């Protein structure tokens, strides 16, 4: 069942007094019907709301920064001010703090990640969009894979194949006997678990946030009925939904920051062995 079907089938017609159980929203609110499909060769592409929102986000970000830096001036004004603020935040706050002076080369990479993820998260609270695109698991997985195929070859290139794995599996300053235990754990946690948690962190945060807002919104609707308890419950649920929306604004920016920061930390680890 997709989100469109849930809305259309009158899943929201349930009320406290009409005797039906609470229609708790589940994972089905993250599935959307295709708006239209097209075929290239043997592949069929379904264009859904998610695809459209992603495309709009890309156009908005490219559009804004091209507009902001169309005629760069020494003394910035208006949009250029905002653009430079964003650039400096990534360069000084993430790239230089986590990677160091060498980090300047990775600013465009981190910059693109931060603003794209932030806007994709932000769709969660935009009226009529109201779905964080990053709560569809494929999207954070794709982002985490891009980071993964960046830092692993980079580490092998910078430290050599043997050096990369030696630095990863045998951190200095540990008793020799501990390496029997430590080396496999380090290998698994760096090569397998890292990309998994990197993507799941973003996905789970946005998934959980959207589900919470949806639950309280549905509860507010469900509890509206001709009774004092029902009305009080509806008002309380609605207030919580509004408060959670405000909280989500914070979480969206924080998760975009954390994803970018972790990408920078991974790249920094690949550039030089940890001391």
């Amino acid at each position, binding site marked *: 069942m997709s989100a469109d079907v849930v809305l259309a089938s009158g899943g929201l017609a349930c009320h406290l007094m009409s005797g039906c159980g609470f229609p708790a929203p*589940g*994972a089905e609110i993250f599935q959307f019907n295709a708006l239209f499909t097209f075929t290239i060769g043997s592949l069929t592409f379904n264009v859904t709301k998610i695809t459209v929102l992603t495309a709009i986000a890309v156009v908005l970000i490219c559009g804004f920064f091209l507009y902001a830096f169309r005629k760069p001036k020494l003394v910035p004004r208006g949009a250029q001010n905002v653009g430079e603020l964003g650039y400096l935040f990534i360069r000084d*706050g993430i790239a230089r*703090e*986590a990677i160091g002076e060498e980090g300047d080369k990775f600013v465009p990479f981190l910059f693109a990640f931060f603003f794209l993820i932030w806007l994709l998260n932000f769709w969660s609270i935009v009226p009529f969009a109201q779905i964080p695109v990053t709560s569809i698991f494929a999207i954070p997985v794709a982002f985490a894979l891009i980071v993964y195929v960046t830092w692993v070859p980079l580490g092998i290139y910078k430290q050599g194949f043997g050096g990369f794995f030696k630095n990863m599996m045998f951190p200095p300053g540990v008793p020799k006997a501990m390496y029997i235990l430590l080396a496999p754990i380090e290998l698994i946690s760096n090569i397998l678990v890292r990309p998994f*948690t990197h993507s*799941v*962190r973003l*996905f*789970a*945060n946005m*998934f*959980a946030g959207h589900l919470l807002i949806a639950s309280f919104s549905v509860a507010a609707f469900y509890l509206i009925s001709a009774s004092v308890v029902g009305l009080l419950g509806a008002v309380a649920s609605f207030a919580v939904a509004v408060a959670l929306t405000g909280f989500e604004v914070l979480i969206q920016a*924080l998760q975009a*920051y*954390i994803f970018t*920061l*972790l990408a920078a*930390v991974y790249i920094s680890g690949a550039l030089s062995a940890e001391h």
Partner: protein
Amino acid sequence: MTLLAEVTGSIGSLGYGLAAIGPGIGIGIIFGQGVQAIARQPEAYGVIRQNMLLGFALAEALALIGFVVPFVFGK
């Protein structure tokens, strides 16, 4: 085999409760120590905040995996 006790219903929610204990303690320690560090050395605010958020994200991921797994695997 005779069953002595059985748990039915939404077991995923119990799992989430268990999964949230560790990260809850961890996040408390991270922010407690982070605030203490900032109070002791306010000029190192930038570095402390960055590491605090990094540790927070690593600990929080465990609780979130506990939240999402029932939706993904539970039927």
